[in-house]
């Protein structure tokens, strides 16, 4: 037992060491690749004053890790500044994005889980709705955007709608699958004990299907977070996607890299939250 534990310890320790090595190697080569200045061209000083550093000093257009770190520090220390409607701190932008994702996602949960139950419990509905689901599922969420803008007539609700429409399918399909594949014996036992339909759904089917449902929800939150960035780049205004677009507009790769990092971390946190929730409902067979 102790030997096994020790082995596990050394394994995770060794993994951490390798992770850090990869990171250091990556940052080091990044730094080397971007630090070199090219040949300095001879320029009229008056002309040089009007040009950027890339043109005058042959500085790489790609920022180095130190530069990215410095801006990241600036964002972390001042995340909630508000300089008007088009320039808000990273924290505020993230709050907007997360707000939209949560709203769209909750709407999807409200629709997908009851509907999934219905499909899973009824062969007829399952077959009848199947063609619609199969056609709607593979549509790229952003393809909905022009239609949403045109019909909903509000860019904020359109973004929420796009989150909804793209996160509803994995949950729906997983719920239906989970409900449909509850073991026949359990249902038969419930029937023998004369458990009512409503009680059966909540005390037998729901706990049995919960792990599958949560897997669907976990896939959905990942998709929702992927989509929000693209949707906000399209409609603009607020959110982390808008931040990326605004900094792209300024060709500020440093800030774009920062945003990429933050998007990744938030996505990971959302995913881990649902992974934890999934662990709570798993049961040994």
């Amino acid at each position, binding site marked *: 037992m102790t030997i096994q534990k020790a082995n596990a310890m050394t394994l995770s320790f060794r993994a951490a060491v390798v992770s850090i090595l990869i990171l250091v190697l990556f940052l080091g080569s990044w730094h080397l690749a971007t630090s070199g200045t090219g040949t300095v061209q001879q320029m009229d000083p008056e*002309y040089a004053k009007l*040009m*950027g550093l*890339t043109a005058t000093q042959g500085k790489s257009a790609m920022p180095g890790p130190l530069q990215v770190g410095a801006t990241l520090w600036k964002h972390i220390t001042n995340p909630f500044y508000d300089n*008007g409607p088009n320039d808000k701190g990273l924290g505020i932008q993230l709050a907007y994005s997360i707000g939209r994702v949560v709203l769209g996602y909750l709407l999807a949960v409200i629709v997908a889980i009851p509907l999934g139950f219905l499909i899973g419990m009824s062969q007829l509905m399952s077959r009848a709705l199947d063609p619609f689901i199969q056609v709607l599922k593979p549509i790229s969420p952003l393809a909905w955007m022009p239609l949403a803008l045109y019909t909903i007539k509000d*860019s904020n609700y359109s973004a929420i709608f796009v989150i909804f429409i793209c996160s509803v399918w994995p949950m729906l399909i997983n719920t239906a699958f989970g409900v449909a594949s509850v073991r026949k014996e359990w249902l038969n036992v419930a029937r023998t004990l004369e458990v009512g339909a409503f009680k059966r759904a909540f005390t037998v089917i729901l706990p049995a299907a919960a792990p599958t449902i949560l897997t669907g929800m976990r896939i959905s939150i990942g998709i929702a977070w992927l989509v929000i960035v693209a949707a906000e780049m*399209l409609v603009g205004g607020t959110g982390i996607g808008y931040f990326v677009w605004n900094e792209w*507009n300024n*060709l500020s790769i440093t800030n774009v890299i920062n945003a990429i990092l933050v998007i990744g971390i938030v996505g990971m946190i959302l995913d881990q939250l649902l992974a934890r929730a999934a662990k709570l409902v798993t049961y040994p067979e």
Partner: protein
Amino acid sequence: MSMFNNPFDPKRRLTSGCPCGQHRSVEEHDRASQLQAQEVAGSEDRRYENVVAGAVLRAMFPQDAARRAFLKSVGSATALAAISQFFPLSTATEVFAQAKPLEKKDLKVGFIPITCATPIIMAKPMGFYEKHGLNVDVIKTAGWAVVRDKTINKEYDAAHMLSPMPLAITLGVGSNPIPYTMPAVENINGQAITLAIKHKDKRDPKSWKGFKFAVPFDYSMHNYLLRYYLAEHGIDPDTDVQIRAVPPPEMVANLRADNIDGFLAPDPVNQRAVYDGVGFIHILSKEIWDRHPCCAFAASQEFVKGSPNTYAALLKAIIDATAFATKQENRKQIAEAIAPANYLNQPVTVVEQVLTGTFADGLGNVKKVPDRIDFDPFPYESFAVWILTQMKRWGQIKGEVKYADVAKQVYLATDTTKLMKEVGLTPPASTSKSFVVMGKTFDPSKPEEYIKSFKIKRT
């Protein structure tokens, strides 16, 4: 809003720290006075009265201590009465606040982050909207299609558009027909053809066969000017080269990645390509058509008719800002006001080079072209007619076009004439004028003949 505090409060310091008494320190005062337009006004009478009274008090008592002693000894009510005796405060206030009641004060105006939008943007940080009693939020938008949709959805009350867009929206080209109006042009000139550095020896357009060009939108002056320029040099814009619509922010990145050979784009994109060393300015758009219109201030007919006073105030603010931007000496301070992240999000020197016309051309020369960009709010109807001829020439609209009618309905030159007079500017005598594009005179009364006279066309 310390400016509107009660000047009769003996505890308040009117002059401490800075010369005008509105700021905590001299530096703050300097910064604010640089950014603020001359007069700032709200809309409530009370505010005006305080502003006027404050000015009178300051003139009477240049020393703050003396004013405070005076107010303390006689009381503010007596002081007000005493001053009213020899200075008609109420009349001064009335003169100051001469405006009809506004239907709506909080407005949203959309813009695309390019220097064409200068009047719309600068009116915010420099206080022109405030001066006309409006509380306007200027909202940056990702692209022209989104500006169009958000304006149609009424998320924006008015917006920055390309001058052909209101025509296209009204005619229902590229969207459902919705009656649109364009009461003001924002800028004239201010565009350029930029080519990748590797083409620096190919200055003759005849050698451009097979090039890939970018323009910001299909219904843009950029598209029509580039097509015109190419066609005049014998290059067919549809078969000899490729022209695609690319949003301005992506243009420099695409030029660097070698996806395109050049673009006819709004500034600061051209200057930014030079600044980053990826392109050079081949010609400025003023060399194709000097004083051509580019971007515009547009609003739906519904807004114009539904809130006429708000619309008038908004348009006056834009006309005022445009007049301010016309003066060369103001350009530097405008560049500083609109360059920050909240507006254009560009380095100040790039914006300054565009607005002052002293710029690096990307080939090692410093050029001085003061009218590289200029500002003139007047929407001549003949501009609309020319745009319509080009839409027809390139097959965007087909069949009969009632040139003069559409132009009159969309380009509200008469409104602009009236409002320009109200803010003390002299409007041009006629709402139509003839002009010259690449050496060829355009007669707005003969649009069909004009289209027929071109060798390369799609009709």
